[in-house]
């Protein structure tokens, strides 16, 4: 029922959602002198630091799964950049757009969607850069790239559901956004972004790790770029992820339904 209303809101307000996504994107980068460049500089610096620390500092062996560490790293980490944005800024989205909640009649449930869309545009730009780097390093274009949109859609759906869940709770209480912030770094190091999942020897440990939706996404991107594996060749992982996706949305809709009417009074 709640889902029906939410979908209806999205259809009725679709033009406004696109406009707001655009303005969110412009707003994020328009305040600074370098503007758009920051969308690239920030991840570039992060990648450089990790590459330096691991390849030069820790002298990691030549590569992972036959790939140079740098190439292996960027394939997975760009999806993390999007997830990270959704964890931090996405969770804050209801607070950020509280003028839409407290000052005018607006379908509040669409706020996470346009924030998510705006972050996805930055993600697409980064993805394009990764393509260019792969080509520059002499990697051949493979047919496996075609499944990238599928992984991207799955990631988008999961993160938008999460944001609906998280941003409503964060609107009700600041404690929640602090909780998420402190978990972000932990999630980064635990999700197999900096090291391959196959390095875990314990079978149970590997299973737990593979059930992590972030690991699924990161591995999915590497399936396209590095492993050259089709999404249906790992049906167990896919099934677990889809279950998690459904649970995430059920939770999000439950919280949204419960707190929708309280939000304007609290903000």
């Amino acid at each position, binding site marked *: 029922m709640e889902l029906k209303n939410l979908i209806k809101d999205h259809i009725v307000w679709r033009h406004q959602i696109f406009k707001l996504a655009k*303005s969110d994107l412009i*707003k994020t980068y328009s305040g600074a002198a370098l503007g758009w460049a920051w969308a690239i500089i920030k991840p570039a610096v992060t990648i450089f630091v990790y590459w330096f620390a691991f390849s030069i500092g820790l002298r990691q062996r030549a590569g992972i799964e036959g790939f140079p560490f740098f190439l292996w790293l960027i394939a997975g980490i760009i999806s993390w950049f999007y997830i990270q944005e959704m964890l931090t800024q996405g969770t804050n989205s209801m607070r950020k757009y509280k003028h839409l909640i*407290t*000052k005018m*009649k607006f379908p509040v449930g669409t706020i996470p969607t346009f924030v998510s869309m705006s972050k996805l545009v930055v993600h697409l730009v980064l993805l394009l850069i990764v393509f260019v780097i792969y080509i520059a390093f002499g990697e051949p274009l493979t047919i496996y790239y075609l499944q990238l949109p599928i992984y991207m859609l799955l990631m988008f759906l999961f993160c938008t559901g999460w944001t609906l869940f998280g941003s409503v*709770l964060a609107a009700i209480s600041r404690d929640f956004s602090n909780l998420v912030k402190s978990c972000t770094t932990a999630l980064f190091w635990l999700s197999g972004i900096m090291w391959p999942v196959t390095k875990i020897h314990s079978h149970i440990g590997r299973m737990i790790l593979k059930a992590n939706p972030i690991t699924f996404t990161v591995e999915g991107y590497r399936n396209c770029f590095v492993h050259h594996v089709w999404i249906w060749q790992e049906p167990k992982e896919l099934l677990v992820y889809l279950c998690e996706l459904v649970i995430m949305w059920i939770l999000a809709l439950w919280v949204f339904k419960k707190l929708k009417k309280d939000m304007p009074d*609290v903000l």
Partner: protein
Amino acid sequence: MSKDIKEEKKEKEDPIIEFRHVTKTYKLYKNDKKRLMAVFNKRIKYIPKKAIDDLSFKINRGEAVAFLGKNGAGKSTLLKIVTGVTYPTSGEVIVNGRVSALLELTAGFDMEMTGRENIYLKGQIMGIRDQEIHELEQTIVDFADIGEYIDQPVRSYSSGMKARLGFAININTHPEILIIDEALSVGDKAFRNKCVTKVNEIMFSGDVTLLFVTHSTSMALDFCKRGILLKNGALVYDSDIESTVELYESAIEVKSKEKKENA
């Protein structure tokens, strides 16, 4: 219930807003943590605070109504419910028309964007086509009359400028129900007069309904013909504006006299 509505529609009057036994209770928690816990645990205690208490009234199309009352009488909450921003705890609210609201001084501006960008954003959210907004843009800019600030971020505006721009947008986008909450009290006299003229103009020409909240009784007299006096969320008096203002002012005088005598 639906039978009632049908019968009312047959009558000559045309209620655009109707409140039926509306009550709004705010839940006050000890702190944010308790509020978060209350989501998962129903036993967490809170203090219920009634902002609006069993309120019923009707407003017809084309009326101009002033809501008077002390701070905390429930005026702003009432306007928020009409706008659809907040929801009543119980009771029924019927609103038949597009609401254009100026709540708590601002019109829901995005602080990081410029005034001009906000005109477009606000228009888009209201569902106006870009072409039409483009046509309205100059009218709005002229009416707001805030000079070069129109291309500056709204966060750099004074409260007067925000009110000017908000008012200019709301009044020029063909509202059906216009809600003004205190917004004009920050404007100067010249702007106020401009607004009075413009409000009277659109009230005269169209089917605009005006809801007005203010502490300035002179402004209420300028704009409105009907007055509603609220006290602790309940309706105390509902009549023509002159007698409502008189009652409101005498209530304040009695209060201040009592205080003086007590002191």
